[in-house]
């Protein structure tokens, strides 16, 4: 029990440390607004990719429509903020909830099936959502999109605004990591992982695997929706065509790049992906060609990604340092 308390404090401490470091660097101007925005976007991508990793990396069910869940969260949050003047926090949470409801509805018929069916249905679902958003003109603005979504803060001080935006996203990021990691490291979480390992063995041990797939998928849709809600406030406008198939693929790429089944891997993967995508812009029209080639090479030569299914453990790291220190004395 005591050891767990220490672990928790260490995690909390290191999270706070990272946050304070970035916020103060932004405050003194070492990290400019552009990079703060980029970090915030990376934060949103990481939240969505973490949600994808839960269903694909930990549960072993490939989902190819997370842009769809993200767009549901984004539009729900934006519509509640703009049309019902609801504050941002409950709107974002509502975005997550509505997305979770859709997740449940999609997962219910398809998760019984084995194989690639979830991949296909989620892909189809993402496309349907896009068509529907395009056609619900009264609510979503149709193909023209939704503009002027209020941001997290509007103090007039750009530096302060950037820090506040980042703070929101960082807070949600921490909450997402904590929730998913606590879920995974628990009895139901272990069953979820056992579905990836061997579905038949898991059923034979008395586990209702369909139910656990449903839980993982619904939770996954919830956080993808949360990511979408944050995205709408971060970017300020939404357009259905942005949430296309390729956009869903981005999250798969982040999760695979970081390592399927590794939460810390997804965090690293999200950072690398967001910055790489930004830097690849110098390639102009060749950007996506290079992106595609990198993807293929990555899959062939580096299948486990940055972290494999291991976690980068801060507490482990700290312990190792202390132990080494101890020995040196």
């Amino acid at each position, binding site marked *: 029990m005591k050891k767990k308390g220490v672990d928790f404090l260490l995690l909390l401490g290191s999270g706070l440390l990272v946050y304070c470091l970035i916020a103060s660097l932004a405050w003194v101007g070492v990290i400019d607004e552009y990079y703060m925005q980029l970090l915030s976007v990376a934060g949103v991508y990481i939240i969505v990719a973490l949600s994808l990793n839960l269903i694909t990396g930990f549960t072993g069910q490939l989902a190819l429509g997370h842009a769809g869940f993200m767009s549901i969260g984004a539009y729900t949050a934006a519509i509640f903020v703009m049309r019902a003047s609801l504050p941002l926090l409950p709107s974002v949470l509502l975005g997550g909830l509505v997305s979770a409801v859709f997740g449940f509805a999609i997962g219910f018929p398809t998760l019984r099936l084995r194989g690639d069916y979830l991949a296909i249905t989620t892909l*189809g679902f993402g496309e349907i959502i896009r068509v529907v958003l395009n056609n619900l003109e009264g609510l979503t603005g149709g193909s023209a999109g939704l503009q002027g979504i209020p941001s997290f803060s509007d103090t007039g001080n750009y530096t302060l605004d950037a820090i506040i935006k980042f703070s929101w996203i960082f807070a949600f990021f921490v909450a997402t990591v904590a929730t998913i990691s606590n879920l995974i490291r628990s009895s139901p979480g272990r069953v979820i992982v056992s579905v990836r390992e061997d579905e038949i063995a898991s059923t034979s041990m008395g586990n209702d695997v369909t139910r656990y797939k449903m839980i993982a998928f619904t939770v996954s849709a919830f956080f993808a929706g949360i990511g979408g809600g944050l995205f709408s406030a971060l970017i300020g406008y939404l357009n259905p065509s942005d949430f296309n198939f390729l956009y869903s693929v981005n999250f798969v790429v982040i999760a695979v790049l970081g390592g399927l089944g590794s939460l810390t891997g997804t965090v690293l993967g999200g950072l690398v992906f967001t910055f790489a995508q930004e830097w690849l812009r110098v390639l102009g*029209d060749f950007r996506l060609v290079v992106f595609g080639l990198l993807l293929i090479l990555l899959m062939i030569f580096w299948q486990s990604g940055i972290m494999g299914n291991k976690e980068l453990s801060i507490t482990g790291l700290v312990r190792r340092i202390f132990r080494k220190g101890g020995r040196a004395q």
Partner: protein
Amino acid sequence: MVFLQQLVNGISLGSVYSLIAIGYTMVYGIVKLINFAHGDILMIGAFCGYYAFLWAQGSASPVLAVAFAFLLAMAISALVGVIIEKTCYKPLRNAPRINALITAIGVSIVLENGARVIPFMGPNPRQVSIPEAFKGVFALGGLTISKVQVLTLATSLVLMVVLTAFVQLTRTGKAMRAVSHDMDAAQLMGISVNRIVSITFAIGAALGGAAGVLYAMNFPMINPYMGIMPGLKAFIAAVFGGIGSIPGAMIGGLVMGVAETLTKGFISSKLADAVAFGILIVILLVRPSGLLGKSAREKV
């Protein structure tokens, strides 16, 4: 009458989907990979057709021009298909399925965006110049059927008959069915699995290339991204028919085509794409193994 007209249009469009769906189903049947790049093979075939028609313009006989277009498209598509298989998919045959799938998506991204930056393809839509002799329509009672539609139906029919004969009657065809049934067992029986996989990709891609020419003749504006939607719909067609089943893919393609034209004609053209995916979800609910598919059960 309007209904019959839409039905004719649907069958014509559907036969193109069938050709593409066959490629998906054959590849899935053998290597269990959703070959996302297959839709882009259609795009390559369409560009081949575009250039074949340009070169043949005015000079040769129209029939020869069309034949040339098909040959060029099928040959180049088959070549591209085999190159992709050898370089990108083969190293991953024993890797987790998700890796192969993401690779296929990568290949698709490379093909689409590669086409954008290649000068003689480029990002802008191009108008296909169909030989004059193939323009115009036949009128049958109240129905109109275009010459291109007739060509589409005839070509698809011939290709499907040839393919069926090949798969059912030749040694290679039998080997293909054996590999699709059980790759390890086929290997033990002395079948060269690598060769069969390559042949499967070549045939699938060649049919996709031919479909590209037909698609470009039916909808004569072509661009690098043109393969995505027909590719997805053909994939749904393959699932509908029962993935792995060639006759299933043929039927599935026709159903998708008819469903699409009927939706466009009687409900809303905007919703046609959503209907395609709606159909997919309904099939998975009602009969996940598809029309002619066998439900595969894992041996324990």
